[in-house]
């Protein structure tokens, strides 16, 4: 199975600052997804980047992917208190019905 490992495990920043979270994985992927989980809620899909893409944007989110280093990063610009949540990456393998397994995530706290 393929599991992402997020780093750091916890991050605390002031509102307005940028937040960067990293994800590393071990084997080749078809795509890598990022999710957000607010406390007590389900995961929300944020963005998907395919293995042939290097960078993708969605609003204040910017995701990069370096398949040679087997790593990805999620940048949230101009953070807001509402961005406070846990963020998970989910690398998805290429063949067969592989399992998408989540790590323990990065817990982001944005202080107003």
């Amino acid at each position, binding site marked *: 199975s393929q599991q992402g490992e997020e780093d750091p495990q916890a991050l605390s920043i002031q509102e307005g600052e940028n937040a960067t979270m990293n994800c590393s994985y071990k084997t080749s992927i078809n795509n890598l997804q990022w*999710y957000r989980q607010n406390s007590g809620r389900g995961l929300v899909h944020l963005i998907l980047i395919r293995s042939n893409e290097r960078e993708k944007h969605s609003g204040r989110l910017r995701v990069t992917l370096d398949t040679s280093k087997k790593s990805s990063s999620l940048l949230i610009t101009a953070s807001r208190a509402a961005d406070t949540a846990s963020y998970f990456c989910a690398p998805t393998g290429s063949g067969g019905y592989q399992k998408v397994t*989540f790590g323990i*995530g990065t817990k982001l706290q944005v202080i107003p």
Partner: protein
Amino acid sequence: DTAVSQTPKYLVTQMGNDKSIKCEQNLGHDTMYWYKQDSKKFLKIMFSYNNKELIINETVPNRFSPKSPDKAHLNLHINSLELGDSAVYFCASSPDRFYGYTFGSGTRLTVV
């Protein structure tokens, strides 16, 4: 309209009981999943169904049995509940694993 809905949201029950959690999606997705999130926030996949066919069956006790009457529903039945089954259970769906997942809001199961 809720895309992936789970019922109940909370479930408190005694050890040894049998309980079911229901999940329904109205997105027309072919694949549905059950995940378990423990107290450390680690999300583990349990089962995956594609068009009513079981495609992923993780190493979970056989007290857990998924049932998919049609591709819009994936229910989870748990027999002889144990204290260690206490967790939040999430249902999710996707068109297939190369697209993002849509998660339900979770069922918090507490076994006393």
